[in-house]
């Protein structure tokens, strides 16, 4: 017994003392390593991920919406830093908060209500209502200024939070509000340039991932990722807020006098088709779009199609002269009225048979004379003439809801309409389209569709100019010049002497049309005046439209309003006063009156074709 255990002891002893210990340690080590490998290498429970996600804070970096500025860079829409204040209602209770000197004080919910109301400038009851309840998330106030938020943060209330957000601010308010547009409650673009240029203005949100320690301070050595936000581009308009103001002030004064339903003004650069003002008698203040009436949300010059009335006679005269049918001095005998089959066409004033020049017919805005010369174009030509000027199609201006107006095909015209379209009835178009017809005439017959976006500046500073529409030769340059002379005659000798601007040669055309009633038929009028200046080289166009002015049809014109605005525009853009005189045409030549012209046969009268030389001059 003694020998073999001793030997066994001797044999076993080294294992029991050292190697067994080492083996046990090794096994333990192996277990630890195995566990380590299990946790760190295989990580079946996703612990590392869970831990990282607990430490990691993903903070969105919202893209800042671009600015909208006017032609001179004055801001029309800007994005401001604001905070939405939220509360965890379940956590509202007595809390002890540290004050600046290190001591703590207990604040009861009632005290908190007063303090929050003071900080945010709200009513106590509003704050109390926001704090009462058992929701874990409720808004106390939205869009508070950084100043208010800082005051609130100094209160150190643990259950009130501030979320950074942006607010759109429109310093000019309702001035040009319908052009600039506005955003809805969730920052969706709902009107004007905000809507049409949304993709450019909005930009792309970025995000920042970083790890934070328990006290909320970022762990400096931990990895962080940042995807920068792509801020929105700035959009510069051709709109000039000063011109916009003159135009709005003038048209509002006139609309107030006439108790009109609405009025609008278009101011345009003749050479480029750039729109400098789109004024309305009332328009939305984009800061508070909810307060606006539905009809104030868009620019009426773009969305409202009206019968243009006599301003369309300029398109007829231009078409007639472009086709070599007549010249400004062509003499036409005009009977007191026209009888075409069962249709009777009269003028706005009573007159006997008169021998008028074309300039005289347009100067006094005679429907009869316009029909006599216009009917020398066949039905299809009358349609094509208007279509070529863009009537019946949208201009494509960068504003939502543009109306195309209505120009029905010539084949669908009834017996009366085929003549009335010559003086702007039985056809409808937006005031902007009317302006664009005059732009074509004033620009040597080259129509450039109106645009209001001047350029865009991306966040990295690159400026891009949108593709300008191609000029389209609508009528010959010679016909355009003749039409301009006729327009000038309207102001110098015709029925729109009040449209004159001291120091400048001005030309234009009045318009009066009946306004279609919503219940069928017509009620009230649409009066308008579109004119250009200076006539020797037209640069600016002003078109004023007034819907349903109250009063006598002869006193509800807008020529004086045109004069006020045009005078401001010419002074504003430092246009040199005119030094030349316009041509003076005879309005009437009574000596050449054709006695055989009657209301029934007036359309059949002929006159000598204007000479080539005359039309060139």
């Amino acid at each position: 017994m003694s020998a073999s255990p001793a030997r066994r002891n001797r044999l076993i002893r080294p294992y029991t003392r050292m190697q067994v210990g080492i083996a046990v340690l090794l096994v333990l080590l192996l277990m630890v390593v195995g566990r380590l490998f299990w946790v760190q290498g295989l990580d079946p429970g996703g612990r590392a991920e869970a831990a990282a996600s607990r430490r990691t804070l993903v903070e969105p970096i919202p893209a800042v919406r671009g600015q909208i500025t006017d032609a001179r860079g004055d801001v029309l829409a800007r994005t401001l830093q604001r905070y939405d204040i939220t509360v965890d209602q379940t956590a509202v209770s007595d809390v002890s908060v540290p004050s600046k000197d290190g001591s703590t004080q207990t604040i009861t919910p009632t005290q908190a209500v007063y303090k929050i109301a003071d900080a945010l400038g709200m009513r106590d009851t509003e704050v109390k209502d926001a704090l009462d309840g058992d929701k874990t998330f409720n808004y106390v106030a939205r869009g508070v200024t950084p100043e208010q938020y800082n005051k609130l943060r100094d209160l150190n209330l643990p259950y009130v939070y501030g979320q950074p957000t942006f607010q759109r601010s429109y310093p000019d308010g309702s001035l040009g509000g319908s052009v600039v547009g506005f955003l809805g409650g969730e920052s969706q673009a709902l009107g004007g340039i905000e809507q049409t240029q949304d993709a450019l203005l909005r930009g792309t949100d970025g995000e920042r991932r970083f790890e934070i320690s328990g006290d909320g301070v970022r762990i400096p050595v931990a990895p962080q990722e940042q995807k920068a936000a792509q801020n929105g581009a700035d959009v510069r308009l051709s709109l000039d807020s000063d011109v916009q103001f003159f135009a709005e002030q003038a048209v509002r004064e006139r609309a107030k006098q006439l108790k009109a339903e609405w009025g609008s003004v278009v101011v345009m650069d003749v050479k480029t088709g750039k729109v400098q003002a789109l004024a309305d008698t009332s328009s939305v203040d984009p800061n508070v779009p909810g307060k606006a009436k539905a009809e104030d949300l868009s620019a009426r010059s773009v969305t409202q199609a009206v019968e243009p009335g006599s301003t369309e006679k300029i398109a007829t005269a231009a078409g007639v002269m472009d086709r070599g049918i007549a010249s400004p001095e062509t003499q036409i005998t005009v009977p007191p009225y026209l009888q075409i089959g069962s249709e009777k066409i009269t003028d706005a004033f009573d007159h006997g048979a008169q021998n008028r020049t074309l300039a005289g017919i347009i100067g006094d805005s005679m429907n009869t004379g316009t029909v006599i010369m216009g009917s020398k174009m066949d039905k299809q030509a009358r349609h094509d003439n208007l279509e070529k000027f863009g009537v019946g199609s949208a201009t494509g201006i960068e504003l939502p809801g543009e109306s195309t107006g209505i120009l029905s095909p010539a084949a669908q015209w009834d017996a009366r309409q085929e003549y009335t379209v010559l003086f702007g009835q039985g056809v409808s178009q937006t005031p902007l389209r009317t302006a664009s017809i005059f732009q074509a005439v004033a620009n040597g017959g080259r129509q450039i569709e109106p645009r209001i976006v001047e350029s865009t500046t991306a966040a990295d500073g690159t400026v891009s100019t949108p593709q300008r529409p191609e000029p389209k030769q609508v009528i010959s340059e010679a016909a355009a010049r003749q039409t301009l002379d006729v327009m000038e005659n309207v102001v110098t000798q015709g029925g729109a002497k009040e449209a004159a601007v001291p120091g400048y040669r001005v030309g234009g055309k009045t318009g009066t049309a009946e306004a279609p009633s919503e219940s069928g038929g017509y009620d009230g009028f649409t009066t308008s005046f579109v004119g250009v200046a200076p006539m020797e080289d037209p640069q600016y166009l002003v078109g004023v439209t007034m819907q349903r002015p109250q009063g006598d049809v002869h006193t509800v014109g807008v020529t004086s309003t045109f004069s006020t605005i045009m005078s401001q525009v010419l002074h504003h853009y430092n246009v040199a006063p005119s030094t030349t005189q316009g041509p003076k045409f005879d309005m009437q030549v009574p000596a050449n009156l054709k006695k055989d012209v009657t209301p029934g046969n007036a359309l059949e009268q002929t006159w000598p074709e204007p000479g080539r030389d005359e039309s060139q001059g």
Partner: protein
Amino acid sequence: MSSAATSAPPTAASRRPARDARRPLSVVPRRVPRRSRVSTVVMCALALAAALVGILLLNIQITQGQYQLTDLTGQERALSQENEALTQDIEANSAPQNLAARANDLGMVPAKDVGSIDLRTGAVTAPSSAAEKSDPQNILVPPAEMKGSDAAEANRRAAEERAEKRAKEEADRKTAQREAAQKAEESRDLNGGSIPAPSQRAPGH
């Protein structure tokens, strides 16, 4: 022998002292390495401590930097917010309708005509007439209802005051007119009755 014998002891005797005498000549023992080992440990400990302190300082520095960064970011935010608020005030004040209203308050009126100088000929064209003093223009474009700007608020209040003043003046004028008409009515001699006598052309007039 004796010499040997005599020489022997002295030899031994002389050998010993000679040996003793040589002892100092032996190689100088090297410095004790034990001291050096201690210093290495101390050095190591110091280096370690220094490294630790260094790392600690570096960490403190980084953390401090982080706090400073947070602080400066906050400061930057505060300043840019202040800048934003001031810009908003400027824009509110420079909105065309607010400028026009203030110009009106100062008694300014729109110019009727402007003069001009022809740069080629040097000819001066004077305005056709001077501006005339007139009633303040009624600015019909309302100021913006912009939130969070004191200037916008002030402009709005000013516009309301102007509108109230205008309405009051209008009412006063109407009252004055009515009173004048009434006075004219009363001043007529009704000869004690209430119906005015039919007017007659007096002879001699």
